């Protein structure tokens, strides 16, 4: 049995932390914030790994692999493009 109450608890706390941290993000970097959070939320990859790799029927695992591909694309492109854009922000 999944303990949904503790999940809800985690969700509420994480949202408050998120609001607090993101509110202080530099306005210069909003585009980068979006590409970075894109990569971070691609943490869905851990769910996809389980669906693709556990001992499930083939069709289910194919769905998992497709989802894994989509998340992995977000991770790779999200982090790389954030870093690429950050290199352009110079003080002088």
């Amino acid at each position, binding site marked *: 049995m999944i303990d*949904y109450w503790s*999940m809800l608890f985690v*969700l509420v706390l*994480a*949202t408050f*932390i*998120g*609001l607090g*941290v993101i509110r*202080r*993000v*530099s*306005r*210069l*970097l909003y*585009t*980068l*914030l*979006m*590409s*970075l*959070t*894109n*990569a*971070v*939320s*691609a*943490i*869905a*990859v*851990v*769910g*996809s*790994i*389980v*669906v*693709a*790799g556990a*001992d499930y029927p083939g*069709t*289910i*695992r194919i769905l998992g*692999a497709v*989802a*894994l*591909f*989509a*998340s*992995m*694309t977000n*991770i790779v*492109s999200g*982090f*790389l*493009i954030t*870093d690429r854009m*950050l290199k*352009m*922000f110079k*003080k002088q």
Partner: protein
Amino acid sequence: MTYAIAQLAAVLATALFIFSLHWMNDPKTARRGVVAGVTGMSIAVAATWIQPEIVHHGWIVLAIVAGFIVGVPLSRVPLTAVPQRTALSHAFGGFAAGVVGTAEYFLGAGENPAQLTAFRMSAIVAEVILGFLTFTGSLMAAGKLQEVKWIPQRPVTYPGQNVVNVGVLVIAVALGVLVAVHPTAAWSGQVFSAIVGLAVLFGVLLIIPIGGADMPTVISILNSYAGLSAVAMGFVLNNKLLVTAGALDGSSGLILSVIMCRAMNRSFTNVLFGAFGTVQKTAALGAQKVWKQETVEGAAQLLEQASHVVVVPGYGMAVAQAQHKVRELYDQLTKRGVTVQFAIHPVAGRMPGHMNVLLAEADIPYTALVEMEEINPEMQQCDVALVIGANDVVNPAARYAKGSPIYGMPIIDADKAKTVLAIKRSKNPGFAGIDNELYVQDNTWMLFGDAKAVIGELVKQLAGGGLH
């Protein structure tokens, strides 16, 4: 043991993700933020992969390799295409959530119906609806931004549109409740597929009436949907790391949406359900007034003799790819001791922060980029305001024209500068279809033409030094 490793990894990854976002509060520390993010992600992936339940590795390797093959080129797109890329990655995020939700449902229905409790089913339905509507909605947004031929750029509206949209969503949710109560009935599979179909449809319908000027808000809203779908996935898979990372993404999208809405003086519902392009045209205030055109020579002279120039960039600068020429102009003017600043409106461009990235790409120091609230009190002392491809964000009608769709929107006070130079491609009104009286003001001079070409000419004039 592996369970403990997985839990520890999840805690570590969560902490690293929070630090990652925290370091984005300053461009100086932001690259550290990327390193923290990558580290957290690697830890989480490794800890999941070594779990004993993972017995098939072939497809995992294949999918990861494919992710790199597609992801690396996607990270190398020109910066003018960053809004499309961002929309595309929201689509991928939503898609992944939707597909995993679908897999979890059919897995449960086929092998272990006891797992499909009403609560878990609700989470699966939420994940699938959010995931697939984000998927198609973001694809549509990306298509509009990329100006794909068969997706209309202009808002598409029809009578009863909102009723249809809300109706589709309501039916999807109602079917969701039905399937949550009866997860294993003979017809449940079909109902579930119908939910997927409706969510896919809803995403398309949601974006059809949205125009380019609303894209910064819509991209932000889709961002938060993508985050919420990850949260729902966390509930389905009983994974707290997914919940925290999804919540961070969701709250980021939420904050950006609120900022974008405020910068346009509109509400969420107004952006999503009140198509911008259909608003009635207000009486042309400057109908009798005429444009005053300035020559490149004259404009160069004005800029050269100024001591404080404020550049107001808009989407037109991005379209014309003029940022590098703007940099040359910046160099020419600063060399002469002119103070040059850039006034950035929050919704200038097609996504949050779009202008900042383009100007940074052209090597303009970020200390010269000033936010709207900070530059406005200084505008009266400004000698020349140079408007490059911006329109609605400098339209004074926003201050008083009650019937105007942009009424109440905070603007950059370009009209208060001693002289205004405006570069504009054509004499057509801006995206909102409203006349801009800034252009016919007594102290405004127009330069018609492609922004890149006009600024290039200005730079040539200034570099030639033949003005004395």
